[in-house]
C-alpha cells in the first residue's frame, strides 16, 4: 500500500473550468492525495416508467473526470521525489433502493475508485446497508437531518464505512455552519467520532485550507486532537484500503512455507504467488494458494473480504 500522506477526498467536478486550478492549489497547500467527486441524484437517472423528465434524465453514469498534471504543477512534492495520487469518486443521493437497478447494469460506474452515499432518510440508509457496499457516508447541508442512533452508527462502522464532514460550507455560510457543527456533535454522542474524515467540498480555489488548519477544526467539531489529525491522514488511507477491498471482491489466501526438494541444502526462497503457481506438479509444494471465491464457490459467504489477511504479506 502506498503512503498517501495528507488527503482531501472531496473536490467537486461541477464548475468544470476550475477543476485543475483547485487541484493545483490543494497540492500547493500540502496535500498529497486528491479525489475528484461527481454527485448524482437518484431522480436524474432514467427510468422507463416516468416519462415526465425524459430529456433531462441520464441514461448512464458519466465518465470519471481526469486531470493531467506536469511536474511544474507540484514543485514542492517534486523536490522530495514524490508524486501526487489523483483518485475519482462517485457520490449518489438516494431515497430508496431503486438506484441499484442502474448501478448494477452500467460499466462506467465501476470505473470510479471510491463510492459515496448521501441518504435522505434513515430508512434509506438501513436498506442500503443490507445489500450494498460503499465507502463514504456524506452529508449535504441543504437536505434535512435524520435521526441517528448508536445501533445505526455501529452497523455502518462494521461495514467499513467512514463518515465525512465538509468544511467549505462552514466558511461561506452561517446556517450551514450550524448544521454541520450539530451533526458533528451528534456523531460524538452516538459513536465517539470514530471513523470520521474531514474534506472540503470547495467550489472555488479560495475555499481550500491547509491540512494543519483542517486538523485544528477538531475543537469546534467536538473531537479530540488525535481524531482531528487522523481525520486528514490515517482515516483517508483506511478509506482507500476499504475501496480496494470492495473492488477486488471475495478472496481467500493461505500462506504456507515453501520446501524445495533439491539435493543441495534447502534454502527457503522468497515466495511469490506467481512462482508457486507456475511450478510443475512433480515438486512437492506447499505454497501459497489463491482461491478466487467470487466466481466458483457458492458456499463462501459474501460478507467479508479478507483484506487484513492480504495485508500481512
Amino acid at each position: 500500500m502506498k503512503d498517501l500522506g495528507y488527503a482531501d477526498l472531496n473536490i467537486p467536478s461541477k464548475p468544470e473550468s476550475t477543476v485543475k486550478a483547485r487541484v493545483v492549489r490543494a497540492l500547493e497547500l500540502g496535500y498529497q492525495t486528491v479525489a475528484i467527486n461527481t454527485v448524482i441524484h437518484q431522480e436524474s437517472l432514467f427510468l422507463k416508467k416516468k416519462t415526465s423528465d425524459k430529456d433531462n434524465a441520464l441514461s448512464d453514469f458519466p465518465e470519471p473526470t481526469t486531470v493531467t498534471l506536469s511536474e511544474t504543477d507540484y514543485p514542492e512534492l517534486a523536490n522530495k521525489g514524490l508524486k501526487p495520487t489523483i483518485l475519482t469518486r462517485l457520490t449518489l443521493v438516494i431515497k430508496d433502493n431503486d438506484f441499484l437497478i442502474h448501478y448494477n447494469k452500467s460499466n462506467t460506474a465501476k470505473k470510479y475508485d471510491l463510492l459515496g452515499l448521501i441518504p435522505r432518510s434513515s430508512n434509506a440508509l438501513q436498506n442500503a446497508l443490507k445489500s450494498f457496499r460503499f465507502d463514504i457516508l456524506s452529508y449535504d447541508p441543504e437536505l434535512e437531518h435524520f435521526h441517528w442512533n448508536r445501533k445505526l452508527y455501529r452497523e455502518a462502522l462494521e461495514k467499513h464505512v467512514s463518515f465525512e464532514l465538509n468544511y467549505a460550507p462552514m466558511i461561506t455560510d452561517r446556517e450551514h455552519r450550524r448544521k454541520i457543527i450539530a451533526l458533528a456533535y451528534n456523531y460524538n454522542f452516538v459513536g465517539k467520532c470514530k471513523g470520521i474524515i474531514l474534506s472540503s467540498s470547495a467550489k472555488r480555489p479560495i475555499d481550500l485550507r491547509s491540512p494543519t488548519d483542517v486538523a485544528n477544526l477538531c475543537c469546534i467539531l467536538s473531537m479530540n486532537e488525535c481524531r482531528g489529525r487522523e481525520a486528514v491522514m490515517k482515516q483517508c488511507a483506511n478509506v482507500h484500503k476499504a475501496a480496494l477491498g470492495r473492488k477486488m471482491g471475495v478472496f481467500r489466501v493461505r500462506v504456507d512455507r515453501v520446501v524445495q526438494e533439491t539435493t543441495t541444502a534447502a534454502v527457503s526462497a522468497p515466495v511469490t504467488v506467481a512462482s508457486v503457481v507456475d511450478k510443475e506438479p512433480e515438486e512437492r509444494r506447499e505454497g501459497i494458494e489463491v482461491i478466487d471465491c467470487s466466481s466458483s464457490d457458492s458456499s463462501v459467504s459474501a460478507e467479508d473480504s479478507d483484506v487484513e489477511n492480504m495485508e500481512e504479506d
Partner: protein
Amino acid sequence: MVRRKHRYAVVQLERTSSIALPYLDVKPLKASEDDIFKAVKIKLGELHGDYGRAVTTLGMRVKYLNEATRIVVLRARQGEPFKMMASTLPFVTSIGAESIQCTTLYIAGTIRHSLIFLEKRQKRIFKQVLEMFKSDKGQKKYKMSEPELKERILQITKLEM
C-alpha cells in the same frame, strides 16, 4: 511560581485575488497589528461566544508583523485558548477592506523557535526567487543592467507601473 506557557502560531496571509495566478505578490499589506487582532477577535466571538472571547483575549497578542512578506506571529496561552484561536483562523476571510486567506505554517513553543523557522523558510524562498532571474539562455545572471532588471521584475510580478 508556576511558569505561564504560551504557543506561537506563524501564519501567512495571502490575498484571494493572487491565489490562482502564478505571479509573485509584491504589494505590502495595508493593515496594522490592531486590525489583525480585531478581525480574529470578532470571529472568535461568532464561533465560540462570550466564553471563547473572554478566555483567549487575555493572553493574546500579535508579536511580529511583516507587511511586505505578509507574515504574522500570534501568541496565545497554552491549552484551550490556543486551540480556540487556531480553530478560528481558517474562518478569517477579510482584514480591513481586503479579502484574505490564512494558512498556519508552524506552531512553536517559544518565540525563538518561531523566528528560527522563519529564517530558514525565507532563505529557501529567496533561493527560489533568485532562480526566476535567469537570462533567456538559461544561465544564472544576477548582474543585469537597469532596464533589463526592470523588465524582468515586471514580468515576474505583473505590477502596474
